[in-house]
């Protein structure tokens, strides 16, 4: 039994083994130059070097800290704003178009302006990432609140509930699945915006690591950075965001639209 389970867990490594074999085949079979593609062995060596010298940890920590701070701020500002807009039909009417418009201007497009205002600093990166994260959160909170059946609210009012009570008991849990969808989407956009911003701002972070390595043609380091970016994104998504989503959906039977 245990062996069978371990095997099933290990099975997800098979596709990766195949991909690495293919990668190695292309590299050595065709003889691609080191300035275009590094071999798995070279990437491993670079990884060991970066990891043992604390470089990787430092750059990764910067990125994770940025995305964490940005997500916290976006959540704290975006959810109340979404409630305010979603519960008032005039506010919803007024802001829906504007929010859609802002969603079309990606956060990274504001980077040049943010650089003019705040220079090449962490603040600039934060502005861009928060902007990227907050729009989908506000938007999805708003849609989530507006999709709550009116009867839920009326029933609670006839039970004598106050406005705050209705927010806590109806709006928040009712909109939560939608909020989490917004958060996941925002993290998808935000993580990429962060990497892109780090490439241009050059104040640390994994984007800085891979873009800096480009300058010196260190393909092996670029690839180590890419793999780190992928793994960290999956870890954040799987460990933080997905559990909330599946918990609320499975327990309440609320279907995601």
């Amino acid at each position, binding site marked *: 039994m245990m062996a069978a389970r371990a095997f099933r867990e290990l099975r997800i490594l098979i596709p990766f083994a195949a991909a690495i074999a293919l990668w190695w085949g292309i590299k050595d079979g065709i003889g691609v130059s080191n300035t275009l593609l590094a071999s798995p062995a070279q990437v491993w060596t670079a990884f060991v070097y970066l990891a043992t010298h604390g470089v990787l940890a430092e750059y990764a920590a910067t990125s994770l800290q940025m995305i964490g701070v940005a997500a916290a701020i976006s959540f704290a500002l975006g959810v109340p704003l979404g409630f305010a807009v979603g519960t008032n039909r005039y506010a919803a009417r007024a802001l829906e178009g504007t929010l859609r418009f802002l969603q079309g201007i990606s956060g990274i497009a504001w980077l040049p302006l943010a650089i003019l205002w705040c220079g090449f600093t962490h603040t600039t990166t934060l502005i861009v990432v928060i902007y990227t994260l907050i729009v989908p959160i506000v938007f999805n909170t708003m849609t989530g609140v507006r999709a709550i059946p009116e*009867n*839920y609210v009326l*029933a609670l009012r*006839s*039970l*004598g509930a106050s406005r705050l009570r209705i927010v806590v008991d109806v709006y928040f*849990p009712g909109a939560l699945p939608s909020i989490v969808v917004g958060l996941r989407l925002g993290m998808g956009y935000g993580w990429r915006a962060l990497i892109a911003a780090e490439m241009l701002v050059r104040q640390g972070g994994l984007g800085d690591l891979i873009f800096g390595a480009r300058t010196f043609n260190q393909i092996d380091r670029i690839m180590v950075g890419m793999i780190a970016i992928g793994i960290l994104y999956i870890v954040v998504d799987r460990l933080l965001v997905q559990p909330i989503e599946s918990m609320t959906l499975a327990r*309440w*039977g609320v279907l995601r639209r």
Partner: protein
Amino acid sequence: MASDKISVSGFRHFFPTEDGPVQATGTIDLAIREGEFVTLVGPSGCGKTTLLKAIAGFIAPSEGTILCDGKPVKGPGRERGVVFQELAILPWRTVRRNIAHGLEIAGASKAVRESTVARLVDLMGLAGFEDRYPHELSGGMRQRVAVARTWAADPEIILMDEPFAAVDAMTRLTLQEELGRLCATTGKTVFFITHSVDEAVFLADRVLVMTKRPGTIKAVLEVPRHGSGGRDWDSFTADPEMRNISEQVMHLVHAERGAR
């Protein structure tokens, strides 16, 4: 008239739309005595729900006054509970926490909440389902929870808007008998809206028949009760007097359909 629990006089309502106001109801006058079970039957779109929402305090009437215990209604209140047609119990609360919600809002102690829930779970046949979420229950079970939640808050008046419309026919018969029994034991004043003639007569002390839109009340029929406790369908269908009243109501309702 002093014992009128609800009194509606000169009520008329308009809804604003992009093309100007639309008349939702004609002029309506009615009075409901304490402890009485009044049903209102009428064609769809006649303004039944509008009237109920106005009594509940969710909408302010365009014209006329609504008094509850002699005081004008200004918004929803704990003394008037509402059971909705569509399920309005919260999917993220268990059966237990849904039923106790009104008491929780009122700040009742845990002991009171638990004993009330236990009593209603027993009364509504929900035993064993206390910790389930609504999506794990059948439609009939969910509507029982909705009824229990309203009763648990112990309002003086209960307003019901086609509560059994979405439930399958067999379950509906059971729920109607259960509701009759529940009202007989608790002595609540109930105002119940339906488009089913049988349901209206079966449950009522008094049946009001409404005209089509904009609706007014065209007839009032008393339904006498013999003995205490709720009615049951077996003796109801066997009783010629009841059959007679049902036919009268049926004719009144059909006339509205023909006039369309």
